[in-house]
């Protein structure tokens, strides 16, 4: 039985258990994944994970209670456990007060998206990756397989999202902390694609062999690759775009909303669900629009609004999750040519990756973090030496505002390699950013 058929049977079963005025919202997440971890171009840990999980919200009027459960994948076994869960939730729900902010979809809109892929066997993947690591110190993770998401409610709505993909996230180490970071992710595994990425990493590795340099604290012209810029986007996404964080005054972008802070004209950021790889539905059954413009021409525009925030603050939801964070963030391209970046830097720093960002003053959207992996000192428009790691401390209003010298015309689609609990489906499509007077502090 396919996983989708299994899910549909579960949804029908849950619907059969609902009585009277009750409504059930059922979310489903599953994966069949292979994970192979590498160190020194050898296998460190190899295995597979098969998991099925539901989250069920049982509603009656304005009262509700939810519960989550891992399931076996066998409808017969699982029906009994779901039956018990429904009983437990019903009993608990009746003890709870009304929830004034409960909002769920009552307009059933079903959808289905199945993206099949072409993946190598586990053995072939290991062989090809070890080949890419031959003569080098390769460390990283290969994750591949199918990821499933579903939503159903007792009103008849059914949404299904399934994709078969791979994500090889790895580094080549030169020694110590000097390394180049690569990613090969997608749906159709192609040994030639892996080889091309490996060759690019090997080229950077050669540059890392030069004697490294340490620069003094101070302000430098830097180029942030799309991967580095993604880390800054991650910080902005941490409360920056959600309606709740705006209404509770906790948004790091509060000075854009309440004050006169703004970003550069060239900065437009959208949640572009229509072109991402994440499901376009959420746990209360609302569908997401293809695009929500978050920042337009450097000014704050719209928030991501969960159903709960919509009810609390009296606005329309745009299908955001409870966390109100982007899953498919997209930043408009600029005009700089990636091929000219070293020339554009002139004298400064090429930053491949940033790492471990956090707020040093959330209220002012000021962030600290580190350079990591292949970061180079550039002089005369050429890479001169790898740079020892440096700490920065900067506000997004300078990096993407007053000090932004330009964005690249080329953008990179970065698929999230994260796997806390389960494999991520979020993505980011970003240009690189050339920034003046980027502040390094340690």
């Amino acid at each position: 039985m396919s996983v989708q058929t299994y899910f549909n049977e579960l949804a029908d079963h849950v619907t059969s258990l609902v009585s009277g005025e009750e409504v059930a919202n059922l979310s489903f997440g599953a994966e069949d994944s292979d994970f192979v971890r590498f160190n020194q171009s050898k296998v460190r840990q190899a295995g597979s994970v098969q998991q099925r999980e539901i989250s069920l919200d049982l509603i009656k009027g304005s009262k509700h209670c939810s519960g989550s459960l891992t399931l076996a994948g066998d409808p017969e076994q699982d029906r009994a456990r779901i039956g018990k869960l429904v009983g437990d939730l019903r009993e608990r729900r009746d003890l709870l007060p009304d929830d004034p902010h409960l909002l769920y979809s009552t307009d059933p809109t079903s959808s289905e998206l199945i993206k099949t892929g072409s993946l190598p066997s586990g053995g072939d993947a290991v062989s090809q990756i070890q080949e890419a690591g031959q003569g080098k110190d390769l460390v990283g993770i290969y994750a591949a397989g199918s990821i499933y998401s579903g939503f159903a409610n007792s009103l008849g709505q059914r949404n299904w999202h399934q994709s078969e993909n791979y994500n090889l996230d790895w580094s080549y180490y030169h020694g110590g902390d000097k390394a180049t970071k690569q990613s090969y992710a997608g749906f159709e595994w192609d040994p030639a694609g892996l080889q091309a990425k490996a060759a690019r990493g090997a080229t950077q590795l050669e540059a890392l062999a030069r004697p490294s340099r340490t620069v003094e604290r101070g302000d430098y012209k830097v180029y942030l690759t799309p991967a580095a810029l993604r880390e800054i986007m991650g910080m902005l996404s941490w409360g920056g775009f959600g309606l709740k964080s705006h209404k509770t005054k906790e948004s790091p972008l509060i000075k854009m909303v309440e004050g006169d802070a703004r970003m550069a004209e060239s900065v437009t950021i959208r949640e572009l669900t229509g072109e991402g790889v994440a499901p376009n539905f959420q746990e209360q059954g609302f569908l997401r629009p293809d695009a929500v413009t978050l920042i337009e021409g450097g000014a704050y525009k719209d928030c991501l609004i969960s159903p709960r925030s919509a009810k609390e603050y009296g606005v329309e939801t745009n299908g955001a999750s409870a966390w109100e964070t982007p899953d498919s963030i997209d930043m408009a391209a600029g005009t700089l040519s990636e091929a000219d970046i070293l020339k554009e830097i002139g004298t400064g720093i090429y930053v491949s990756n940033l790492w471990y960002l956090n707020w040093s003053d959330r209220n002012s959207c000021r962030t600290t973090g580190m350079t990591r992996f292949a970061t180079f000192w550039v002089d005369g428009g050429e890479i001169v030496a790898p740079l020892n790691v440096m700490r920065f401390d900067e506000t997004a209003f300078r990096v993407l505002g007053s000090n932004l010298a330009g964005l690249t015309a080329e953008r990179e689609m970065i698929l999230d390699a994260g796997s806390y609990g389960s494999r991520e489906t979020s993505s980011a499509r970003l240009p690189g950013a050339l920034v003046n007077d980027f502040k390094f502090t340690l």
Partner: protein
Amino acid sequence: MIETLSARFQRALPGGIDFCSLRFASERSEFLTVRDGILQPVSLGEDSGVMLTVVHGGGLGYAATSDLSEEGIREAIKRAQSWAERSAGRSVIDFEKIPPSHPQGTYSGPCAEPWESTSLNDKIDLLQGLSKELKIDDAIVTWSAGLGVVWNDTFTLTNGGGRLEQNFSYIFPRLRAVANKGAETESRTFGANAYCQQGGLEVLETLGFKAAPGQIAREALELLTAPNCPTGTMDLLLGPDQMILQIHESIGHPIELDRILGDERNYAGTSFVTLDMFGEFQYGSELLNVSFDPTRPEQMASYGFDDEGAPAAKEFVIEKGKLLRPLGGTTSQKRADIVGTANSRACSWNRPPIDRMANLNVEPGDSSLDDLVKGVERGVLMETNTSWSIDDSRNKFQFGCEIGRVIEDGQIKGVVKKPNYRGVSRDFWRNLKGVGDESTFKVMGTPNCGKGEPNQVIRVGHASPTCLFGDIEVFGGV
């Protein structure tokens, strides 16, 4: 459950494999939160499954499944065996060189006052009451009181008769007040969620949960009108709810043996610590004593055995400032040929064990808080972590706290906002010049420590007294 799964495991075991284990983990949870006076959606959680591990021909493979049927277990063993065969001869480790372990034992964490001993409505009433105590002014724009429980039951069976069974209960109390005026927002919390322990509802009394809201709300308001933390090089006095983060990031992670062996270099990072430093390296001043202690029952990561079956024991990792041993479980110890600790842990049934912190504590010294403050001519007392960042070798860090208090001429003066400090791990710990006594010592935890590929988030424990450091670079907000 254990007898049922044991019978299925025995029937599913194929002949002729070197080693096979089944690790079952079940985690049940309930979290209650009242935000702005309104009970948030109540959610019950149950997550359970098994991890099958096979060692064969020098390779190791694993397969995790939430299908607990005999067929599900049999299929998982086949997948694990297949991965063991594929990785044999290609692995960092020749697993034939690690003797199979078939441990036996049981462990139960403390729980004097079970979660169910108080009704759901009484718990909600408690949170509603605390919530009201947080809303003391119109400038408090959002506020919340929360309480959660997690029950964790695990057992491990091996093909050689090994059988370990462990049970834990954890309590998570939470409070938060956010104050705002215009574009200025400040918040205070109940120890940034680090006031958490193993046990039942008796933990709330131990941690002073019910008495905490008033001070949290008052301090959030006070921060709104406070000046920025001063900038300069000065003394830094850290309360336990910041010390735990300092220990975690700049001692715990750097001495994890798998990081030193390079496993984490693509994700969590490497370490400035190398194998030759153990037994030789002066990590901090002579006042620094750090223990790996999974035996303090109430602490978050106390247990009887780690997930490779090694019995837990207290060990000093740093004594009088000298680095003695890494945090590394059985597999890492064999790889590095060095003595470590029983800390090979998996976050759940669907992830393999790796080297983690368990409880990592700075031992109390002999200075009272008054003595520590009196010893400061110019400095800042910082409490409650709010920001953490450190490089991938665990050297250059920058941490921020919710609240600071200026100290001048041995006396605590006014509150300052946005206190931050930065430094380099080794230099920082060598500047330790005062360690608080038992009266300043608090047992806390870090509920969300992330590491590993595939990623794992796990609970660790930290306990610490208040500590004083000299010559630290301190600064405030914009």
